[in-house]
Structures are given as C-alpha cells and as structure tokens.
C-alpha cells in the first residue's frame, strides 16, 4: 500500500480555535507539532461564532470577577458541569483573551481604550469580548496567523479515519488527503482531538458538513469514554426561511443588543416562560427589562436573555400552540427598538446575512427565527487540568470534550473554552510526548487494515447512495431525538439507527479517489451513526429534564439525576454501552459561591 508517513511529538486533529490554540502551546512547549484539518486552514467552524468570548475582565463592570463567571456558568449548566473545568475556565479566560491581542487581534474598544464587552444570555455582567458580530472570524484568523508565523506544519484537507494505539496508549493516526485520496499516517505519542461537534446528524442545524462527530467516534473506538452525550443545545434563534438557509445561526447578540421575541399575536411571550430557578434575577415587567440595558444595577435582565435551553423551549411551545409565524418560527425584533445605524454598526453580518439570503432588512422588519441544533455539551471525558482522555496520549479540547458546560452551555463560553482548554491540552500533550522516549513503529498490519476499511465503499457495486443514508439519519434525529423527547420515540430512533448501520455497511460510491465528496461522506457516516446512538441511548437513560435534554415523559429535574453523569463507552459488540457515574464533588469554598446573593 502506498503510504506517506510523518513523525511528530504532537498531532492535533482539527484546526478550529481549540486545535490551533493547542498546537501553538505544544509548539511553544518544544514539541514537534502538526495540525491535521478536514478543510482549508481558517475555514473551521469557529468562524461561525458571532457573539464573543466570555471572560470576566471587568472592563465595563468592576463588580465582575471569575467567581461571578463561575457561578453563571454552573447555573447555566444546571450544576451538572465539572466544577473544576468551570473554575479553570472562569479564572483563565481573561488572560487567554489578552494574549490574542499580542498576536494581532483587534477587539472593539471601550471609551477607556480597553477591550469592550457585551451582554449575553445567562451572564450577569456584560462580559463578551467581541468584534462586531464576527468574533469567531477574528479568533480563528488570529490563531491561524500565529500558527503560520510559528511555522507549525498544517495538513489541510486531510481527514483522520483512525487513531492508532498499542497497549500503552496512542502511537499515531491514520488518514487520507481529501484532494488526492492518498493515505497518510502520523507517528506520534500524543494526539489532541479538537474536531468540534456533531450537528450534521440533525436536519436543522447551524453546523457545517465538518461536524460529523469524528472526534467523539475516534475517541470511543480508541477506548476513551464520552460524558453527557444526551445534552444537545438547540440555539433558540436560527433562520427559518427560506428553506435552504433553515438553521443558519442568528446571533444571540441581537437579543444582547436590545432585540426581543414576539409571537404572531405581537406578545413578548418570554415573560410567560421564566422558570423558578431564574425568577429572582429576571425582570417581571417590560419596563424593567427595557431599563436594564442602561442600568444593570437597579434592574433585572430581560427574559429574552435567559439561558439558551429556556428560550429554545419557549419558542418551541409558542409555535406548537399555534402562535408561530407563517414559516413556523417566532419574530425576533430589533428594528422597532434600535436605530438603523446602531443595528448596522453592532450587527453588520446579521444585516448582511438577512439582506442577502432572505431579502429581509433587519433595520426595518422583524426576523423570523426558530430553534436550530447548535452545540453538543457532551464529549470526550477528560481530566479537567490536562484534558487527558482515558487513553494515555489522547487529549481532547473544545466542543469535542465534555464536562465543562454541564447540561447547557452559555453563549460566549465556547470561544473561551476553546482557548483555555486548547492551551492546557497542548501543554499536557507536549509534556506527555516528552516523557515517551523510544518511538514505537506503526504496525504495518494496522495501517493496511485502516486502508482497506477506507477503500471498502469502492469495492461494493450497486450499494446505497451515501447522501440518502445521511438524509434518513438527519430526519430520524430531528424527528425522534430533537428538543422534546419521549421514551417511545427514542426507542424507535435506536431501531432506525440499527437499520441505518446495516445500510452504511453496504454503501457504494461512484468515481475515483480524487476529491470525491461521495466517498468522504461514506467514511464520515459511521462516525455520525455511533454518535447518534450515544445521544439516543443516553437521552433514553436520563429520566428527567435538565438543560439541553427535555423529556416530555419526565418534565422536571430530578435531584438524583442531578448528581449523576452518564458515560458512553464502546461495547464489545461494536455498539455503545452506557454507565452511571457520580458527579465530582465540588469543594466547600466553591460551593459557598452559590450561597452568596448576587450583588
């Protein structure tokens, strides 16, 4: 078999925010580092992040500090977060943002010349460092340019299909160049997974084709475990019309900057959906909510800025109750509340996106929005300080890692998550590689087997079209494991997933190996299926509603489940096994923070 081989200390899979930050740190720690990514450098899904990077820098509100951020994050995640990750995240995020400036990032400024911060759902103070509504682009470009300046090797348009292990852990990775279809293997004692999420298993999603859950699946197959997979975040505001753009994200900044949600009757319905958990800190009247934008001390936040799970469920209920818009969403209105100049200045890419794709002028008309699959809270179970998975040499950071966000992620916490844990993963991976003296040759039989498996779809004739199978999977997950879940539907979903697995084993693709999207999809589908199975099984198991997991048959939270994590691992039959695991115990000095009344 013709095979290109490379040798590194650390191989980072994925070139989004977490991957690049990990690579930079590994490089700075003296490791020979490579980044492998499915797209061109700089195209990763991080560019889609709009709102900002949450960090308690206290540039606008001196009252803000890491303890408030920690508290917001834990409460947003309904206390299911790994406390240590939430703590590290809140403590380190400000430094991670400041160092971006040393690498060329240009954030919007406060009148004092500091980094400006904006309001977002679930955050007590204006906390999101931002650049208009294109913060993700700024983040990825900054890290990309830093990566290039440091001379780190980047393998672009290259997909990893296997992690290679021996009894002591990771020894490398195997993949193919998308462009030529040729195989390539990296020998490395440390691999950092930074592959992002799983959204492409859903029909309506804000995620791109890359989000096929490969990192989750690779980790599982290598012997690592996944945590919290039942928690999938549906962003409350995705576009709903026209059909071809359904699911594309409408940033939360629209609400942070004054936008409100209305149903078809013109009512500001979020006031009817304030849960007891957040009642103390949420405005009761429209007048109070409107005053809050200018005076945060004496007023409470508008209910539009509740955490995303609450808002998504509320929109879902309004539409189901027949108070939706003609295209099955609700209205998001900023036109009647802010001046056109303000809107164009603060939300330029939203203005552009609606004008170009939906022929809607958001400075004059309300937008139609509805929930869209956005983020998976669950992911590879890692050590909070080193991001090490259960397999020695394997690390995970960013969306592919689990635990940090509990049952629901706050907006803005994902970009800071990428930076904080990307850096920690890169550091730990470099250290691990440093401790691995003698190199282990990649075994020929494992490489040959990986190659055979990748080429299998070409061998079969007259099998099924991968696009059809993908479509059926997306429909199944959308209909049966969506925002609102019930046991019978999820059981049906598992049956269908089992049937889809058989169909995937019988896929065939036309054409040859050179840049063949049909073949690429055929190789991504097994990942999507195994991740979908994890989600469905974990969701069926958790008999309560919490954060991004809502059960129609178990509508409330359950204190017992509030102390339990569900862990997915690979079963001996190739399927998914589910286990219960107690939530790590928060130390008393952190638990105190929740006793404090918010100032």
């Amino acid at each position: 078999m013709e095979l290109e081989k490379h040798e590194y200390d650390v191989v980072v899979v994925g070139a989004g925010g977490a991957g690049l930050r990990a690579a930079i740190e590994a490089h700075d720690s003296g490791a020979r580092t490579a980044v492998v990514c499915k797209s061109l450098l700089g195209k990763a899904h991080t560019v889609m992040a709009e709102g900002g990077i949450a960090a308690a820098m206290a540039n606008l509100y001196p009252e803000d500090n890491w303890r408030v951020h920690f508290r917001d994050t834990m409460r947003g995640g309904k206390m299911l977060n790994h406390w240590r990750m939430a703590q590290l995240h809140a403590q380190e995020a400000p430094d991670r943002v400041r160092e971006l400036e040393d690498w060329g990032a240009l954030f919007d400024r406060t009148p004092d010349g500091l980094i400006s911060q904006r309001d977002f759902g679930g955050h007590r103070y204006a906390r999101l460092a931002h650049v208009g509504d294109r913060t993700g682009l700024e983040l990825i470009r900054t890290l990309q340019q830093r990566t290039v300046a440091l001379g780190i090797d980047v393998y672009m348009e290259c997909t990893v299909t296997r992690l290679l292990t021996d009894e002591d852990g990771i020894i490398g990775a195997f993949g193919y160049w998308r462009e030529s279809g040729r195989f390539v293997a990296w020998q490395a004692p440390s691999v950092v997974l930074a592959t992002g999420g799983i959204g492409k298993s859903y029909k309506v999603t804000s995620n791109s084709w890359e989000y096929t859950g490969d990192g989750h699946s690779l980790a599982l197959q290598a012997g690592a475990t996944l945590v919290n997979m039942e928690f999938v975040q549906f962003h409350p505001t995705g576009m709903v019309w026209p059909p071809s753009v359904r699911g594309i994200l409408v940033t939360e900044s629209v609400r942070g900057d004054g936008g409100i949600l209305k149903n078809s009757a013109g009512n500001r319905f979020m006031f009817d959906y304030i849960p007891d958990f957040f009642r103390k800190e949420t405005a009761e009247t429209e007048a109070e909510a409107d005053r809050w934008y200018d005076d945060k001390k004496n007023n409470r936040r508008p209910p539009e800025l509740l955490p995303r799970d609450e808002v998504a469920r509320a929109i879902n209920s309004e539409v189901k109750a027949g108070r939706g818009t003609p295209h099955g969403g609700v209205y998001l209105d900023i036109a009647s509340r802010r001046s056109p100049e303000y809107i164009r200045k603060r939300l330029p890419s939203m203005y552009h996106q609606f004008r170009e794709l939906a022929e809607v002028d958001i400075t004059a008309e309300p937008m139609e929005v509805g929930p869209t699959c956005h983020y998976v809270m669950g992911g590879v179970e890692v050590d909070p300080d080193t991001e090490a998975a259960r397999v020695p040499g394997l690390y995970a950071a960013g969306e592919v890692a689990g635990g940090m966000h509990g049952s629901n992620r706050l907006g803005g916490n994902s970009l800071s998550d990428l930076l904080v844990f990307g850096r920690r993963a890169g550091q730990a991976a470099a250290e691990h590689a440093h401790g691995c003296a003698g190199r282990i040759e990649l075994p020929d039989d494992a490489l040959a087997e990986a190659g055979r498996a990748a080429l299998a779809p070409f061998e079969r004739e007259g099998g099924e079209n991968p696009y059809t199978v993908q479509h059926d999977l997306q429909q199944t997950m959308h209909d049966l494991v969506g925002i609102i879940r019930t046991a019978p539907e999820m059981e049906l979903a598992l049956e269908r997933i089992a049937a889809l697995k058989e169909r995937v084993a019988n896929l065939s693709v036309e054409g040859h190996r050179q840049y063949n999207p049909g073949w690429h999809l055929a190789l991504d589908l097994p990942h999507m299926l195994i991740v979908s199975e994890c989600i469905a099984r974990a969701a069926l198991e958790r008999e309560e509603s919490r954060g991004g997991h809502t059960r129609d048959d178990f509508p409330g939270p359950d204190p017992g489940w509030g102390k339990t994590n569900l862990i997915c691992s690979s079963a001996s039959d190739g399927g998914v096994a589910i286990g219960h695991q107690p939530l790590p115990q928060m130390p008393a000095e952190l638990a105190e923070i929740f006793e404090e009344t918010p100032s």
Partner: protein
Amino acid sequence: MTYDAAFRVWRGDAEGGDLRDFTVAVNEGEVVLDVIHRLQATQAGDLAVRWNCKAGKCGSCSAEINGRPRLMCMTRMSTFGEDETVTVTPLRAFPVIRDLVTDVSFNYEKAAQIPAFTPRSREKDGNHRMQQIDVERSQEFRKCIECFLCQDTCHVIRDHEENKASFAGPRFLIRLAELDMHPLDVVDRRDAAQEEFGLGFCNVTKCCSEVCPEGIHLTDNGIIPLKERVVDRKFDPLTWLGAKIGRRPRD
C-alpha cells in the same frame, strides 16, 4: 415555486475537462450552492465542490458564476431568469484539482511570507490601550474571509501566471496594509510591500473591490493608502528628508 433550471457545470481535472449540461430542480429561496448540492445528491455523486458554512462567513465555496467570481452560497437563484442557463466554473486563476475545486495553495504560501505581527509591549497593568477610531481601519481588512475571489479576479495573476512569483495579490496587500496601520505593530513593511510583494504591479483597476463579498474597500482603503505610505518612504524626497531630520516620526 419549483422549476427546472438549466445548469452548465465545468467537470474535469488538470488533464482536461469541459462544460456539462444538467437540468435540475430549483426551489424558492435557493442559492447556487443548493443546486450544486442537489446535483451531487441526485445526478453526480462525485461532483467535487468545496464548502463549509453556507452562510457567507467562511469563504470556501468560491467559483465563477456566469463568468463572474462569486460565492456560491451567496448567489441567489432569483437573480437569474427561470429560462437562463447558469454556468458554474472553477476559479480560473488557480490550478484546477477537480471540477469546481481549485488548488489555492498559492495564497497560503504568500501568507506565510508576510512578516509577522510584532506588538509594542503591554502597559504596566497588562493591557493594551487603543481607541475605537485607531482600530477601525485595520478591522475592516480583518473582515476578510479569505475566499480568494480578489486573487482570482486580479488580472495581474489571472492573466499572467509568471507574475505569481513577484506579486502577492490583493488579499495580501490589504494584509500588509492592515499590519502597517495596526496601532500596536512596530515593524515597517513598506519596503517589503514594494519589493517582495509587488505592490507596484497593482494598477488600481479595482476588480478586487468589485468582487469582495464582504464589501471591503480593498483599493481605496487598503492598497492606495499603502501605495501612498510607500511613496512616503521611497519616492517623496520631502517626507524622506523630514524623516531623516526627525521632523516626522512615524507615530
């Protein structure tokens, strides 16, 4: 609202290829990329196309539609008549890999040659202080999504392959402008802009500004100001003299 559209799509690779005709259904509100995906799912499973976000934010799906460089995800089908044939070809300034996918590595090579951002040191409290008006000019160029449509349309390299060695293209000229205007950066890139990155090749014919999907004013706000900064350094004896005798410090 559904109709059958006539599409002509270039299929082939570096060895050769041609425009193939397809008839494909189009629904209300769709963009060209939707139609290409429908072709892929129903008629040509191996049709190669590069894309990611489908919302005009990542700059992956660049192609030429009816001869004009555009993002496929931001070109609405409603801009064409129902009886109009829509021709989709790969970017013509770059080597083709397959079908609509081209080899854009030229851009990554140029990016790597640009002298890196080098900041002044932080203030005592660990912050950098800049006013909004100081950062806005460079922010405009940082909106760039690297779709490389400007590189594709620029005649300097589109029509003259041999210039690729000595000309970085509009995308990287505005990158140089961004760094030169950056309030924190301390490196002078003006000589490099002229000598290594071929600023003088640009004849300000503005096609880059015309095709930019982000609406960046590449020529007026980036390339021309950079040319003027180079004039300060290389062609204007007065500013040269001023700088020599210390009357005109670069702030």
